[in-house]
Structure formats: C-alpha cells, structure tokens
C-alpha cells in the first residue's frame, strides 16, 4: 500500500498527520515522478467507433491501383460481421504536407497543416475486434471492464497541479456516451478520488452538482456563505476529542476546495473572453465545427489551469442514425461529417497550444479503438480492422514529422514494428516522468499496471 492510499484508508490512526495539504493540491500524487518529465499534461482525443486509418493518415497507393479488385492479402481474412468485399480506395484524395512530406487525406486538410508537429504510429494492434472490449483496451489497457483508465492512473500517480480544479476531466460527445459509457473513464479499483469529472461543455449544468439546482429556492448567497462557515465550525467542534483522525480534517478542507471549484469552473468554461481570432481558429464560427471546437478550446483552458488529463470524445455509441466513426454502411458520408467536424478544432488546438508555448510540455494524443478494412463492406462501408491502425501524438516531448511502424501495402496488417496501446501508454507515461513498470496498484492479488505485463517505450518517436 502506498503512502497516499494508506492515508486515505487509515487516516484514522495517524495521529497528527493532517490530510489537508494533500487535498490542497500541492501537486504530488501517490508516486510522484520517477525521472525528469518532459510533459506535464495530456489531452486525449478519442475517436469512438473506430476511425479509418486508410482514409486519414495511412496512405496506400495500392488501394487506388487495385480499386474494385478482389481483396486478396494472401490469407484468410477474419472480419467482424461480413465477408471481405473488393478493394476500396479512400473516397478522398491524398497530398503531401509539411517539411516531412507526410501524405494525408483531403478529409483532414487542417490537421495536415500540423504534420511537422506530429509523431504518427501506424502499426497499432488491438486485442479485440469488438467495440466494447477494444475501447476498454485503449482506455485502460485491458479488454475487460473494471480497470482504471489512463487518466485515472496519471491522476493517481501525479496528483493535480491545480488547487481549484479536478485532476482528470472528460468532455463526452454531446450526442451521447461512447460504447461502455462512463466505465471508459472509470477509476476502476483506484480510490474514487481519481475518477474523472465529466464536463458537459455548452450545457446549462456542465458539472453535476456544482451548484444547487435553481429550483432549490431556499438557497441564496448569504445562506450559502453563512452555512458553510457554520458547517466548518461544527465540524471543528466535532473534531475536539477526535484529534488524529485526518479524514475528519480532510472533510473540512474538502468544502474549502469545493468552494474554490465553484468559483473557478464557471470561469474556465466561459469562452467569451477568448479573442475572435482564437474562436475562429477552433472553428467556433461554423455550425459544423462549433461543438468540437468548443470542447477543444475548453480542454486548452483546463490544461492551462493545471488539469492533468483531459479526454475529448469524438462520437457517441454505435447506434443509428450513425453518430460515431463506425462506418459499416457509408464511409464517405459518415467519416466525412465526423472528419470535417474534427479537423479544424484539432488543428486549432495544436496551433493554439504551440503559440502559447504550451505544446512543449503538453501531449496531444489522438486515438481510436481499432482501424477499418481496406476492402469494402457491402458497397460503401468498411468493417473493423484490429490488425493495423493509426494513432498519433503531438507535443510534450514527442518528435514532430515522424512516422513509426507500418502496415502492409494494403493498410491491412501491421508488419513493421507492430505495437499495442501498452507501448503508447508506456511512452506517454515515460514523457510524464513515470516508469510504467513501477506505476502499480495491488488489487485482488495482482500488482496491476496500466500496461498489464507489457509495454516498451517507443524511443524513436521521443525527442
């Protein structure tokens, strides 16, 4: 049991050790850093439903050359729900971008403008071809429910840099929850203090219970101020004769923190102070990009104020009408809409972080649960592909303009330097100053890690 868990669970017997300083967010977590970090914070962009690699970042001329021919990679192809169709080139054209000359599809012209800041990993594998388990895997490293997400692990390890805001924030897609729901950002068996705070940006009540509902007319500013001061007084009186129980003191401190959160949260969520140029940069001026733009801009504001890990979702569950990247039926239409909504805000986020000098120690991490097949499903869609797909990183010590690993000529299977999310997580933790093999928590007989028993730091993409 580490010191912090010990304090949380058994604070009762510690005689004189107050928890107040831990709650006050002095910036240390259960482990603290293992080595000098390059990154301090992370924003993860999660494409729910499986974004296609061969329509975005994984350019394969063979698909254009063999368009319409039978898909024959030389082995039996096992698909999620269909039989392999014909070779289907991307409905979008491809161009080279940046100093590095990276080929990017015309679906994402703005992101293409940032390629010199991005490290692409093209050789990802997933351990499941099913959304639920695979989405769990990208979030928690396990294909089963009940494990802590990367954000919870990082919050557990490093604590907060903010006195007023939570350590781990999630901005779900307003269209709904992704597959697995809130379990994707669960704290699992880690103490509940590390669970994510969900912010429904742009709604009247973005944080659950931040304030009493307007219908509670008996509450006003005076009743609140005097009430909290009275509460502190009686809690202090209760403490007399119960000295040494740091949990009691921690609860007193928790109301001070709550009050600070009430003040700071509305400020951080209020985008009105942002300049017209910034709002444009994120696409807030267009209906198509406004939602994603608002959430990416909110993410920057949260990171700026010390939030450790922000997760932004593009896409909800796999239902109909299509509201995520699961384009089994009509890829051009569905990827087209989601890609366009995503492209400018994400590019805006990278550029904005860069211009503020924050990209140096902020990681932007783009990922999805698996990829899609280079052959068609039916006539216009693509089925799942767990054998080779793309994630990318920008900032926080990642190299720019590099590509790591590769799929075969079809974009079907990772053949060069295949990796799992374990390796991505190991690399991410490494840049945050954490050794992924030492960040563990004993649960049900096993020292659990975000990287299970796997994971290698991918040195080639780290500067």
């Amino acid at each position, binding site marked *: 049991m580490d010191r912090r868990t010990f304090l949380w669970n*058994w604070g009762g017997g510690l005689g004189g050790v107050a928890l107040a300083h831990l709650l006050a967010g002095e910036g240390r977590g259960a482990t603290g850093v293992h080595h000098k970090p390059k990154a301090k914070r992370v924003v993860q962009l999660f494409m729910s439903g499986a974004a296609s690699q061969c329509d975005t970042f994984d350019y394969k001329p063979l698909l254009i050359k063999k368009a319409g021919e039978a898909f024959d990679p030389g082995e039996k192809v096992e698909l999620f729900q269909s039989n392999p169709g014909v070779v289907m080139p991307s409905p979008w054209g491809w161009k080279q971008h940046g100093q590095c000359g990276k080929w990017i599809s015309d679906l994402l012209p703005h992101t293409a403008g940032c390629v010199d800041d991005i490290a692409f990993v093209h050789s990802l594998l997933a351990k499941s071809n099913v959304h639920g*388990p695979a989405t769990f895997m990208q979030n928690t490293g396990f294909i089963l429910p009940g494990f802590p997400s990367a954000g919870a692990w990082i919050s557990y390890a490093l604590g907060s840099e903010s006195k007023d805001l939570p350590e781990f924030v999630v901005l779900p897609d307003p269209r709904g*929850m992704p597959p697995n729901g809130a379990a994707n950002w669960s704290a699992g068996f880690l103490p*509940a203090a590390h669970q994510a705070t969900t912010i429904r940006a742009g709604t009247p009540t973005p944080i659950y219970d931040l304030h009493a509902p307007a219908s509670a007319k*008996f509450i006003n500013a005076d009743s609140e101020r005097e009430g909290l001061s009275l509460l502190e007084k009686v809690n202090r009186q*209760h403490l007399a004769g*119960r000295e040494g129980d740091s949990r009691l003191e921690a609860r007193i401190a928790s109301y001070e923190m709550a009050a600070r959160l009430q003040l700071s949260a509305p400020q951080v969520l209020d985008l009105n102070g942002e300049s017209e140029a910034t709002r444009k940069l994120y696409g807030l001026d267009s209906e198509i990009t406004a939602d994603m733009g608002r959430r990416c801009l909110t993410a920057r504001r949260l990171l700026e104020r010390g939030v450790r890990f922000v997760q932004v979702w593009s896409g909800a569950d796999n*239902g109909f009408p299509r509201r995520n990247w699961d384009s089994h039926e009509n890829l051009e239409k569905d990827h087209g809409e989601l890609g366009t909504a995503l492209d400018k805000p994400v590019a805006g986020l990278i550029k904005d972080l860069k211009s503020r000098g924050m990209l140096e120690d902020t990681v932007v991490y783009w990922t999805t649960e698996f990829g899609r097949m280079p052959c068609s499903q039916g006539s*216009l869609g693509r089925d799942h592909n767990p054998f080779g797909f793309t994630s990318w990183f920008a900032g926080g010590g990642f190299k720019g303009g590099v590509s790591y690993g590769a799929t075969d000529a079809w974009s079907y299977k990772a053949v060069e330097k295949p990796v799992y999310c374990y390796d991505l997580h190991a690399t991410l933790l490494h840049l945050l100053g954490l050794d992924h093999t030492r960040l563990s928590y004993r649960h049900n007989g096993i020292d659990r890690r975000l990287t299970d028993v796997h994971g290698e730091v991918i040195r080639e993409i780290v500067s």
Partner: protein
Amino acid sequence: MLDTSMRLVVVLFAMGLLAHAEPVSYARQVRPVLAERCLVCHSERNPAGKLSLGSVAAMAKGGVSGPALVAGSPERSLLVQSLKGDKPRMPKSGAALSGQQVALLERWIAEGAKDDAAGAAPEVWWSLKPLRKPAVPGAGHPVDAFLRQRLSEAGLAASPEAGRRTLIRRLYLDLHGLPPSLEEIEAFVADRSPRAYEDLVDRLLASPRYGERWARHWLDVIHYGESHGYDKDKPRRNAWPYRDWAIEALNSDKPYAEFIREQVAGDVLYPANPKAYVATGFLAAGPWDFVGHQELKEGLTDKDNTRSLDRDDVVATVVSSFSSMTAHCARCHDHKFDPIPQQDYYNLQAVFAGVDRAETPFDDDPTVHQKRQGLLRAKRDIQLRLQPYLDKVELASTPEIVKLDSSIQDAGLLIVHMGEPKTDADRAKKKMLEERRVEDRKRRQELVDAIVGPETYAAIERIKAEFVPVDAELAKLPKPRLVYRATGFFTRMGNFRPPLEPRPVTVLARGNVRSPLGPASPGALTCVSGVNAKFTASSEEGQRRAALANWIADGRNVLTWRSVVNRVWHYHFGAGIVDTPSDFGRMGSKPTHPELLDWMAAWFRDEAGGSMKQLHRLLVTSAAYRQSSKNREDGARVDADNRLLWRMNRGRLEAESVRDAMLAIAGKLDLTIGGPSVEMFFFKDDHSPVYDYARFDPDAAGAYRRSIYRFLVRSVPDPFMERLDCPDPSVLTAKRSTTITAIQALALLNNPFVLRMAEHFAERAGTAEQAVKLAFGREATAAERELYGAYAATHGMVNLCRLLFNTNEFLFVD
C-alpha cells in the same frame, strides 16, 4: 582510492552487509520470471526441445542442447546465455528479458542455484495449513482473550467501553446500515437489564433490515450488477430475484455450507427447491459482453475469446469470493507466487464449460418448478439431437453463398443507414434494395437446399415434432417467473446459442485461444490438501458444478472457513485480520492474529454450524467491538493503524448508508422488502441504452426504497453514489476505499436527492432542536441550540437540515 572502495564492496558483499547481498530466492524471485516468460514453451507438460524449466532439477538435467543450468557457473548455463546479447535467442516471442531479470538469474546461478522451493519439506503457506482450533489463551470472551494477548505483548490495553448512544448507533449502522430511531436510542439508554446490549443485538439480527445490509456486502464481493456492461449495456431486468435470495439467505440464517452449495449448484443439488435455483444467479452476477456473444459468428477468434474470458470472470468470482485465492492469476501461466498451476485454473474453467449467462424460467411452487425443469431438460435433449442438422443448414457454404451473404448484408446496411426515405429517389432505391434482398435470399435458399438435401430437412421436421407434446405440457403450467443466472439451456438469441452440454476447454498458452496446450478436465485447486480436487468429467454440466460446490463447502477445505470469518470480521471492525479479504496468497497480507482466525474458523464451522448470526453475535458482543474509538497517544505511538485493536475503528458511512440514513431521518424511508429494482434514472432503450440520473425525480414512486433495491447499471453508475465510494459493479470489491474530495462535498451539498430530503427533514423536524436530535440521536447542547437556531431563523429550516446532512457527526460512526 577506487581500488580500496571496490575492495570494501567485495568485503561487504562477502559479509552479507550490502542490502542486495541477500541470496536470490528461486521460489520468490527466479520462478516468477521463468513462469511468466519461459514456461509457456518449456514446462514439464510441454518441454520444447525436451527442455523443462519447471524445476531446478529439470533445468540441471536439460534438453537436447544439454544442461540448461550449471550451478555456480552462469557462463556455462545456457539458461542465461540464451537470454543475452543484442539479439538473444530466447524468448522466441515477445521482448527480451530486462537486464535486471538476466542479472537476477545470473546471480542466483552464481550463488549455487539453490532450490528453496522443492526442499525436503516445502513451506506451506499459512492459509493452506491444516485448520486446528487453538486453545483460547485466557478467560472471558474468546475474541478478547486472543486480542488481549497481542495487546499486552505490545504494552497496550484495550479502550474502555463506548457510551450507550455511541454503541447503539454503531450497532445499527453496522447490522442494519441505518441509524437508530430516537425512541430506540432512548429505550436502550434507559434499559437497566444486564442483558440490554445482548438483547439489542438479538433484536437487530432478527430484523429483515439485517439481511438488506449484509447482502450488500456480498454483492460487492461478487461484483453483482444489473446491466451487462461493455457496448450495448442492456438492462438485466430479471437479475433481482438473486439479490432477494441473498437477503433472505442471510435473514433466515442459512448455514454457510448451504449458502455456498445453492449459489454454485443449487439447481442440481436441490432440484425441488426453486429458491436454490434462483441462487445460481450468483454465477451470472458479473459483466457480459453482449456484442461478443450475440453478434459474433461461431468460429471467430473473438468469439472464442469472448467465451474464454466470460468463464474467466466466473472462475475469478467463485474462487476469490469463497476461497480468497487469486486463481485468475494462472490464466496466462502458472501462478507466479501461489501453488496454482495453469492446469488447475483451466480445470476450474472446465467446471463452467457448459453454462452461459441468460434468463431462464422458474416457479415458486416447488411441484410446478420440478415439472417445468423436467420438461425443459427433455427439450434440451431433443435440441441436442436436432442441433447437428440445424448446423448443417446454417453452416452450408460455397463461394456463391458467401457472395450472396455479402449482398444481403449490404442491402440491410444501406437500408438501415438510409433511415426513413424522404425523396422519391430514396424510396425507389430502398425498394430496389429490398427486392434485391428477397431475390438473394431465395437464391441462397436454393443453393443451401442443394447442398444439404431433403433428408436433412426431413430429419429436422421429424425431431422438431418431438417438441410438440413437451410444449403442450409446458403450456399447461402457470406463467413462470424469470431469473438471470448461469444455465446451459436457453432460447437462442442471434448468435448467442445455448451450449447444451459442456464445451471443450483446453489449457491455453499465454491465455491465447489459438494456442491450446492440452485438455482441461473439471477440477479445483490442488493446493488444498485433504479434499479431492479432481472431478468426473460428466457430460451433464450440472454435475461438474455440484462437485465444485461440494469441494468448496467441504469442512476440510481450510480456505473456505478462514475466508468467511475474516470477511465478516472485516465488515464489523473496518479491517480484516487478513487485510486482503479476497487474497490469502503470498501477495496478500498475513493475518495479524492467526490463532484467533483459526479459532473462529473452526468455531464457526463446528460449534456454530455455519450460522452467520452466531458469528455476528460473537463478534459484536466482544469488548473489542464495544470499546471507544477515541484516539490514545500510547496506542497511536505503538500501533498507529490500530491493527491490534486497542480502540474501535471509526468509519465513514458507506454510500448506501448515507442515502438510507437521509431517507430515514427525513421520515421518508420506504421499508418494502424485495421485488424488481427501482430504476432511479431516466431510461431510453437504444443501441447503447441511455441511463440519465439527472432526469430523475427524488420523490418518484419507489425512490424512497433502501439503496440495495436501486437498479445497478454498469456502464453509467449513479454519480452521487460513485462520489461516495460506491464501487464499480464490474470490480470484485473485497473492501471499499474511503476517499474525500471536493466533488464529494459538492454532491452532499447540491445533489437534488440531498436537497429534497433536507426539505422533508425540515418539515418533519420543525425546530432546530428536534433536527439535531433526529440527525445525531442526541440532545443539542446549549451552544448548538443557539448557533443552529439562529441560522434556521435567518435562512430557514431546510438550509439547516441540508447542513446537518453535511456534518462529520452525521457521516461518521464513532
């Protein structure tokens, strides 16, 4: 200079003075590395290159390339040489071993490759040692006698008994999960009988509130939830009969052996008892991957993986809950620390090879129940003969059929994607697609018919006809109830089909379903001595579960009896004698009071006959339980975390108790027992259903029920409860954590439920004085009357009541 310091190091090393100079242990350090990375290919069972690395002797003997191990000489030991270099020869797959791991192996060999695992008498871990009932060391209450011994060794004494108000609140919240009413407090305080406390304990244990409280603990341990989890997190609207079974089992004080048998194999061992049938809901308590089971076709890797992991969840649940062992650690390789070979783990999987999780019918009337179950077994037998013919039709395939399938699916996808067509062009397109699909299906049928031939259809018709009289009998029976449980026979849903009989289970290298090593046969943990862990590989899956149920419930199974008394102790005292209640292995904690634990385990099994209520009575009547929780400097200095129990532990109310206590104090608590769970959220069915807690009226029908009757969603847990450390229903939770956060404070201040209850509480109390009495069970002091009275006068009673719900006095139990 350098030379001198080097020499010093050598000297220190030789004298064993450097920290790392302790010799490397084969059992604790070397074997885990080998188990994880090498034994998959080089085990006794599966010696690649005739080489087994399963024991020190086998390594010395070696394989086709000669000995792998030469004690004292890492240079001549192939074991380490093959791991070294830029491109090490071993392991064949995965990353190379780390420099640290290789150095460890080298040092062990250099030190003589000592075998501390297989010595003349291998050390038996405490939890697996024979269970003997030690003599009670002294007079008085046995629990106190054992505790006193350790306390006096540490120069400590127990604390004085707590006051009566504290005691009754402690007992109520512990045994009922609810605070006592004012009348109950006053009556107890005024009770002059010398048996006042004991009588109170008896009254509390006789109340149905007891089962509602303690069943919740058990539901934590077994990760009971009422939706599947994963993608498409559908509600399980018929899981609750199991929850009611658990409450009733505790209230009726079911002997623990029966408690075990009914949950693992109640349908088989007690066929005349419908309640025992419901008890097997236990095996289905955990999450279930809807898409993997219901949408994936037979034969896909992910399909097999889904099934294997589903059995893994059942094995982990059963073994960690009843035996406090981490058998699930042996899925990918032999357990690294405990004597659980992979074979044992897969033998446990083989016990559950014939079941899936599904709803099945049952009847409260035992006669009707037996009749229905008999008829369903008859249907199962018919289905078993029918299935091969159905498979022949279903699996018939030619390249043309494959093409047609794609075309049929394509039409379906495009139609779904189109939604309701809005233009003429769309309508025409939809019509075209529908027509194409009809044509394709017709052609497909013709092709299949040609392959399977009319004799297949004739056989199908012939066998299906056998269902008719059975179905007629079933139709005569009254409407059954449903329960979500483990079963081998249910109505097929999509690609989720009943196993009918046990599926083959094999040992899997690295847990990979495409790397079978050898067959598994039903069995249990071989490390438990004195109980036969090899079962008959019956084709009746129920017999396998019955054998496991009897193995666990066996009086000689030392793990079972130690596990349960420690769990019960944990909940009463706030920490177990073993502080890892679901792990009695080498990675778990050791008991602080091993003799006490064994005494209790033997007493519970033999004298108490497995009666939980007697066990509760034993523990809560001890002086240890009744002592004050006040901090003491002498105790804090010697034993800061109170492992010796020189005082009682103070606890924070659990999420359910916070909610139930608010309802009780507000005068709204609805004590209706049992029945379907209350959905305390807005629900909308969809691909992934919507569960929205913000859109729920805290005064809605059923909203005042106790928290154990809440509907428990896995994908989206109730944020209010979650913030109070209510565990994720997908996690096997042996003990809850207590966290304190700003977000939690906000929930207690502002959640609509709290505010609404504050309104009801204010209405009930009327005055500040009465509110203090109701919330804390005591008179207000003069100072409080003034402070609270003034606040209520200015801001109203509701604000005061909201504040009282936020006090530490309300939220903690002394």
